[in-house]
């Protein structure tokens, strides 16, 4: 009986996995079909002949290289600064003694209830005054430090014993050395988690880049893809090729860091 149950569960899992996987598969396979071939009846799951022309067009005529580069620079930049600043903030909130620490943190936390859309206009005006619209900084700067990131790191840093920091002080480490050589290595799982969140969030973000990047040369991939879909409504295969290019880097990053990511989420849930 237990065995039957096991197989039933397995079958269900496979079924759900296939359902989830099918759209991805179709996206990839459609991107290799000649124009119009994905809309024929009966629908085809695989291309009869692999056609790379859409990719060629995307990278040559439609300037996708530039958008890809924009996305990479912005996402990596935002991730780097977010990890750097949030880890410093979270560490300070967890381990430093300063006056009004708790009330300051509660104040910061309370700002999490403000919806992001509400802040879009003021932040836009701020960036405009700073002359950052249509630069990479327009996306990187607002994402540099987040309450969520600080909170995440702070909770994790609580698990680092004070005596370890004190031991480093006795060993002769400066505050910066303690942060770089003791805290950061110990926070690796949570940094990977936060890095993934930030990278994927920035990479996939559509609305904010659309607002702050009016120069088409500065578009990120999702914005470029949206433009593509309005210009090439009929060309499903071209759109799918664009989608593949947009999705694959995130997928690679996620798969590569998956094991740390899970460790980060699970960390601290049980007493070891």
């Amino acid at each position: 009986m237990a065995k039957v149950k096991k197989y039933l569960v397995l079958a269900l899992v496979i079924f759900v996995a296939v359902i989830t996987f099918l759209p991805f598969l179709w996206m990839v396979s459609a991107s290799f079909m000649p124009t119009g071939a994905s809309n024929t009846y009966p629908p085809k799951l695989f291309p009869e002949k692999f056609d790379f022309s859409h990719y060629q067009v995307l990278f040559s005529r439609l300037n996708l290289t530039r958008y890809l580069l924009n996305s990479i620079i912005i996402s990596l930049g935002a991730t780097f600064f977010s990890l750097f600043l949030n880890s410093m903030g979270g560490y300070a909130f967890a381990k430093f003694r300063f006056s009004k620490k708790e009330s300051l943190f509660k104040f910061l936390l309370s700002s999490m209830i403000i919806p992001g859309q509400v802040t879009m206009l003021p932040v836009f005006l701020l960036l405009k005054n700073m002359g950052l619209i249509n630069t990479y900084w327009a996306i990187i700067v607002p994402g540099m430090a987040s309450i969520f990131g600080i909170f995440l790191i702070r909770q994790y840093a609580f698990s680092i014993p004070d005596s370890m920091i004190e031991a480093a002080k006795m060993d002769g480490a400066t505050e910066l050395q303690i942060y770089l050589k003791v805290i950061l290595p110990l926070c690796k799982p949570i940094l990977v988690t936060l890095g993934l969140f930030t990278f994927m969030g920035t990479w996939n973000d559509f609305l904010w880049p659309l607002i702050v990047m009016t120069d088409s040369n500065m578009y990120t991939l999702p914005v470029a893809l949206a433009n593509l879909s309005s210009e090439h409504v009929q060309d499903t295969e071209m759109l799918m090729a664009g989608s593949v290019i947009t999705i694959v880097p995130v997928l690679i990053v996620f798969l590569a860091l998956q094991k740390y990511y899970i460790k980060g989420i699970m960390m601290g849930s049980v007493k070891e």
Partner: protein
Amino acid sequence: MSEVILKNVGKVYEGKNRAVQSVNLEINDKEFVLLVGPSGCGKSTTLRMVAGLEEITEGEIYIDGKLVNDIPPKDRDIAMVFQNYALYPHMTVFENMAFGLKLRKFPMEKINERVNEAAKILSIEHLLERKPKQLSGGQRQRVAVGRAIVRKPKVFLFDEPLSNLDAKLRVQMRTELARLHHQLETTVVYVTHDQTEAMTLGNRIVVMKDGIVQQVDSPLNLYNNPVNQFVAGFIGSPAMNFIEGKIVNDDGIKFTSEMNVLQIPLDEKVFSKYVNSKITLGIRPEHFSDEDNALNKIRITLDVVEQMGNEVFAHFAIDGKPIISRLKPKDTFRIGAEVEISLDKNHFYFFESETGSRIV
């Protein structure tokens, strides 16, 4: 020379919570000094002020003749071993021990030499490539000690280093620490709440209570001549027995216990001014005897008998108060047995009940 001097050192936390009160202490070069007391007595805070991990709110601390109040820990030339080892989990044993030397920009050859030397002293040479999580508790403690000794500091500070170890390992490490101190000849300040560690390890013991130093003395002097009831009760295991009573003038000056079970004639010169005062009699477990020729015999009923082989801990009550005695083992000692027992009047301690201070 590396003596440590504390002058009127005090610690007041925010909210006027006073943890340590005007501690005066001179720790000599190469001396092994223990700070003992119950938890919350300020011993760890005092140690942490010497280390520089806790701000000194009052008084002055000198290490090697230099005022260190405003000097950060790293510049005090001291090393500390923590209760929970505080090893860096992402580094190997070698890296853990070398960390302080690397930060101080020692050349690599020197680092290798120092780490290997320390590893040899502590017999952990075979563990150098391991990470802390692959080590047992005792091994981790050795690494923590190793991390301290590679730097060859002026002063070693130990904050309850053995309390995370099991009983057997604790005894073993205790001996090793004693040997290590002898070998390295460095000043050591050691905090513990374990009075066995205190008695066996140090040259001098500082007994603290409620942030105040009660007595500073050699282990034997503390044991034989405690200045007050607290020190008398804290040092020694099993602890000293206390019997409450008062001084009466009834055919001469006498101590009588609350329910008159004990009547002890006393020296008039000393005790005449205490007539009608409440007094506590202290007597250590080994100063009871059941020998036939003993004087001042009283008859008691044994409550609990703990046979240790070479001795027996016999529990009974005087005046309804639990008393523990350390006697020579006998088969007749059983729960419920009636025994005639005497108290050695040469080893009586008398304390004022109200203040706890010692009379004689």
